């Protein structure tokens, strides 16, 4: 019993350590990525024509005049690179200090705090992701169960091929096709925007489609695996009807790995949301990242969006892991 507790504590500590390490890496990466910008970010934002004073003011306002990291290798007068130590007073620590206080700097374009821009857009992305998740679950569970219980028959084959086609059809093909059918041809739904509840239908179908295909395959193989277990034979031997066997026993156990996949695929969903939001002009984080951030070279906005999307993903993964452990006590210890 004591060693059991020890394993739990150690496992928990390990998980927290990994979480912190990953968070540190993501923030560092996001901070240092701006150093990759070819040339000078100030020139990229303000353009070649700006005056030296404007450049100076811009760099000062956004801290770009300060050293990027604890040390650097600047060129001296003769063109040789040499090591220079800057101490704690650098952009890397600045960004960290800001993050701790919930401050992600000011937008290079609009001077608004990046955190405000993100909070304004965040609900739309979460709304889209949850709706897509629901679409996927509603399609995938019945389809996967039917395919799994009719393994090897034409029903299974059709379901499997449909799922593969769903995986292969990218959202940026499905999305515009849905727009063509429902907005251009029959005018039932708006092609883009987020004004009416019905505006959610096309984006969530688009984002959910590929996801439901992955999920269908998962549910199918999970159901097949569970059907081979001893308890299924016992349940059938007891004289339970096939429906009870499948829906009460098989599905309950078979959904455990599916929950994990759901959680792990959330990253795919969040990344996919970037494309879906662009297709439908859905005002979420993805659109903020692609149009306001990357499109207008507003690197502060890019940093903030990447940071928030990855953190959401990391937290969702951790929660998934906890739910998984709760559902299946066998894996709690090992």
């Amino acid at each position, binding site marked *: 019993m004591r060693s059991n507790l020890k394993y739990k504590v150690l496992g928990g500590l390990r998980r927290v350590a990994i979480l912190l390490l990953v968070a540190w890496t993501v923030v560092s990466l996001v901070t240092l990525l701006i150093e990759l910008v070819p040339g000078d970010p100030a020139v990229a934002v303000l353009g070649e024509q700006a005056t030296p004073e404007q450049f100076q003011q811009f760099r000062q306002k956004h801290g770009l005049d300060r050293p990027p990291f604890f040390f650097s290798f600047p060129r001296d007068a003769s063109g040789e690179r040499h090591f220079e130590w800057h101490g704690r007073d650098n952009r890397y620590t600045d960004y960290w200090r800001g993050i701790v206080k919930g401050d992600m700097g000011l937008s290079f374009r609009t001077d608004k705090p990046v955190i405000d821009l993100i909070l304004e857009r965040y609900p739309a992305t979460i709304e889209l992701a949850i709706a897509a998740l629901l679409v996927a679950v509603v399609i995938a569970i019945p389809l996967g169960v039917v395919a799994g219980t009719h393994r*090897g028959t034409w029903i299974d084959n059709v379901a499997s091929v449909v799922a593969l086609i769903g995986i292969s059809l990218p959202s*940026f*093909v499905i999305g515009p096709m849905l727009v063509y059918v429902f907005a251009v041809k029959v005018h039932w739904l708006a092609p883009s925007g987020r004004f009416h509840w019905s505006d959610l239908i096309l984006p969530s179908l688009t984002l959910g489609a590929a996801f439901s295909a992955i999920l269908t395959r998962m549910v199918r193989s999970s159901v097949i695996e569970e059907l081979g277990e001893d308890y299924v034979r016992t349940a059938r031997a007891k004289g339970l009807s096939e429906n009870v066997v499948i829906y009460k026993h098989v599905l309950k156990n078979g959904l455990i790995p599916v929950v994990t996949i759901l959680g792990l695929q959330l990253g795919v969903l969040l990344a996919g949301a970037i494309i879906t939001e662009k297709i439908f002009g859905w005002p979420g984080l993805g659109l903020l990242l692609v149009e306001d951030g990357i499109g207008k070279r507003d690197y502060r906005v890019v940093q903030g969006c990447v940071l928030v999307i990855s953190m959401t993903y990391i937290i969702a993964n951790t929660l998934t892991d906890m739910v998984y452990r709760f559902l299946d006590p066998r894996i709690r210890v090992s």
Partner: protein
Amino acid sequence: MNRLTLIGIVIVLILVLVAIFAPWIATHDVGATNLSIRYLPPSSEHLFGTDSTGRDLFSRVIFGARISLEVGIVVVAVSTVIGTLLGALAGYYGGWLDRLISGYVFNVFLAFPGLLLAIAMVAFLGTGLNKLILALCIIGWVGYARLIRGQVLKVREYDFVQAARALGAGDFRILLFHILPNSVQPLIVQASLGMAGAVLAEASLSFLGLGVPPPSPSWGVMIEEARDLSTLQSAPHALIFPGMAIALTVLGFNFIGDGLREYLDPRQRAR
């Protein structure tokens, strides 16, 4: 062999042939615009019709195969080599190297949606085919490394490895001639699915305007150009043909990968 695998092989073969012989198959110049023939429906002159600037869609889709395959092959080849090397070293030697690679790098990459990382890198590096390939390789190698590490950990304990060691074989010889040949089977599946993934990623990034820049006939670029409402209204075929090209390509590689996986893993094989 599985029928779907066969279909996959046929699709991929056609794709490869089309990419190699693109200049002979294409009927028009891929870049030549002509506003007087915009939005033409498919005909014998323009097999897939024309787009919003009067370019021949058939020729553009044909040349798009080159971009897709180029990105796919380079990304999968580079990722496989780097992934196999690092995964095998981590699995074989263990110790601090394994702790660094599997304990830290794998966890970080798992915690980061791959497409987002590619988008972030391209956003800061700038767009272009080479930067796109670089970004996809950086996110791609980890999957292969994880796979090979697991395989090596398993195969390392087999008797024939002990036998080879008893006969005096060195680490390098054991790893290269005894462990790796017995670890690569799942790698082939991963590489096939990786081709599908790379083709999809290239098209996605190009669609977002972060991959191959516009005048090039990348399928992702073509879809982005075809999805505004006026083009959708007058020329839906400008969306459908490149869309079908992407879907068929990805489907082909997925069919092959799936077929191979079933073939290699008897538990999944239909009775």
